[in-house]
């Protein structure tokens, strides 16, 4: 029965995807991609991926909409009407042929949910078995993320770190000749301060979002959650504050210097925990030696590196938001 629900949701997902590409109005595209993210998260949940769905929820609903809208406010609201058709016809033919080839190839794919598929033969079951004895936490996803595949996650954290630094480099420069300029910057009351009802309700929500973010961060070993989701949630709470009270007040709460410290600090914390493994006579990112009891040591290492991940993700997402907002208020 869940397969039928999945098929319905996938159909909605497809329609949304096609509508996103088809519409000329960029604002509509952004709105529809918000919907796309909601539907995608529901699909992930049906496919047993609660952690992934939580990540999509934390990132897709708030932050990506805010970032796309602020980019839109600076650049353009409408796509230009296409001038020549030949380009699109060629693209359409290429895309159609490739779709047909891909669909043809799906008949050779393993059956949906097949226990004999190659995916379920190698390391997957091994992780499921070893987690209980080596780390002893319920959430296998967190265990694989932090401990078994700690290198991967370290790499991903550094990609996020690099992207944040890249945005700061790109948008930290002086405004270009065609920058929209902002005549309202000094006179206009910033944020939504004079919208009383959203302001009151929003201010009430912020502590709950922060609290929930911390819950997700530290409950990640036992339920869906972890550093990536928590970082996105905490960043979303601060962004909500910035929207309600104006960006300048949000910068007073967490100044730019602190944000840069967070970006670097989280990645450094992760790396340092890895190095401690070497100092104590084992391999890089092997947490077993952090304490006399290996299981306990693994759990300690996991908590530390998840904290590092959370700090970096919060710092990067908030810095990106502030860099965009400083470029032109949306």
């Amino acid at each position, binding site marked *: 029965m869940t397969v039928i629900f999945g098929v319905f949701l996938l159909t909605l997902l497809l329609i949304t995807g096609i509508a996103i590409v088809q519409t000329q109005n960029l*604002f509509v595209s952004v*709105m*529809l991609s*918000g919907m796309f993210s909601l539907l995608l*998260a529901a699909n992930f949940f049906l496919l047993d991926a*609660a952690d992934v769905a939580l990540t999509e929820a934390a990132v897709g*609903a*708030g932050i990506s909409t805010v970032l796309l809208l602020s980019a839109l406010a600076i650049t353009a609201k409408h796509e230009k009407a296409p001038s020549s058709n030949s380009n699109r016809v060629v693209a359409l033919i290429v895309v159609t042929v490739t779709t047909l080839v891909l669909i043809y190839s799906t008949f050779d794919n393993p059956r949906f949910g097949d226990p004999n598929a190659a995916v379920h033969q190698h390391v997957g079951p091994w992780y499921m078995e070893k987690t209980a004895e080596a780390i002893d936490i319920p959430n296998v996803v967190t265990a694989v993320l932090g401990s078994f595949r700690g290198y991967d996650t370290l790499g991903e954290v550094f990609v996020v770190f690099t992207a944040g630094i890249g945005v700061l480099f790109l948008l930290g420069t002086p405004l270009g000749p065609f920058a929209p300029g902002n005549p309202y910057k000094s006179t206009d009351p910033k944020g939504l301060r004079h919208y009383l009802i959203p302001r009151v*309700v929003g201010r009430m929500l912020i502590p709950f979002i922060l609290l929930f973010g911390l819950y997700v961060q530290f409950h990640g070993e036992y339920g*869906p959650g972890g550093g990536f989701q928590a970082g996105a949630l905490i960043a979303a709470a601060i962004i909500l504050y910035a929207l309600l009270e104006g960006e300048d007040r949000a910068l007073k709460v967490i100044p730019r210097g602190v944000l840069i410290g967070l970006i670097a600090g989280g990645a450094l914390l992760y790396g340092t925990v890895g190095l401690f493994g070497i100092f104590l006579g084992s391999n890089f990112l092997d947490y077993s030696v952090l304490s006399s009891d290996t299981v306990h040591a693994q759990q300690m290492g996991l908590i530390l590196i998840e904290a590092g991940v959370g700090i970096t993700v919060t710092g990067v997402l908030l810095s990106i938001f502030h860099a965009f907002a400083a470029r032109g208020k949306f």
Partner: protein
Amino acid sequence: MYYAVIFALIITMGLALARAIIGPSVYDRVLAVNMLGTKTVLLLAVFAFLLGRPDFLDLALTYALINFIGVLAVLEFFRNRAAKQPGEKS
């Protein structure tokens, strides 16, 4: 026992999607997105029970908390656009 409500929710999501696609004004689309957000929260909550893992309500909780930000961002976007281009209506 959850099937009826899940079908109602999914069909309503389809209706909201139709409203988002046909518009006509941007406000209709925002309304549709907002509605779809509420439906998703409820759907995820019911799914958590359907899949027999009611401890996964965190997801629905996340959406219940976060959806608001998108609407506020849109509101701010409109307000600044109105301030910049007083004549434009959409």
